């Protein structure tokens, strides 16, 4: 079984440019999560979807970040007017619904560098 697939693995943007990151969850998983990983903050929750509907975006910086899940096979995280402080590894994860502990399965991440 393929795991969570994230593209691109590395992205370099100039300050003020837009960055779009893509995530393909594990087939059959109904929940998709986005986290940001930095040395200082660790794994910060950004947002998640369940059955393609946005459920919790409490971690999203409101002004420049947006996430969508147009179909069950992919989700995107868009950052407009990127700033150097947006540099981080962005991790996507998916999870199956129903009984159980709700383990998240992570992709390898997209490393964003804003110059």
């Amino acid at each position, binding site marked *: 079984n393929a795991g969570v697939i994230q593209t691109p693995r590395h992205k370099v943007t100039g300050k003020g440019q837009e960055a779009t990151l893509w995530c393909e969850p594990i087939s059959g998983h109904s929940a998709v999560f986005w986290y940001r990983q930095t040395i200082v903050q660790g794994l910060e*929750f950004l947002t998640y979807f369940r059955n393609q509907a946005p459920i*919790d975006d409490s971690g999203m910086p409101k002004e420049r970040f947006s996430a969508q899940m147009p179909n069950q096979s992919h989700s995107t995280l868009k950052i407009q007017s990127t700033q150097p402080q947006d540099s981080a590894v962005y991790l996507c994860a998916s999870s199956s619904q129903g009984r159980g502990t*709700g383990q998240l399965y992570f992709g390898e991440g997209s490393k964003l560098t804003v110059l």
Partner: protein
Amino acid sequence: GDSVTQTEGLVTVTEGLPVKLNCTYQTTYLTIAFFWYVQYLNEAPQVLLKSSTDNKRTEHQGFHATLHKSSSSFHLQKSSAQLSDSALYYCALRGTSSGQKLVFGQGTILKVYL
């Protein structure tokens, strides 16, 4: 809200010696499950251990952890560290107030030396 605290940013240990990574938590409501994730260099975080039962020891790959709700802790231990255990470790919880999301600690880098 829920929070997880990992007090050590870096733990170093000599191969063959025991190691312990600390994890404590605060939660407003009920907790559903606790996890330890491990992330090797340039790889995705993956589950190492998970537990939802108070005072029950959970083991995997030589590591073990016991959830103690009385002390709000879920420390990770291994009796004999190996060079291959060098990685970044995250403690996480899923609480009823969190929905399906996991709340992570800041992570602990474990370095095992010869």
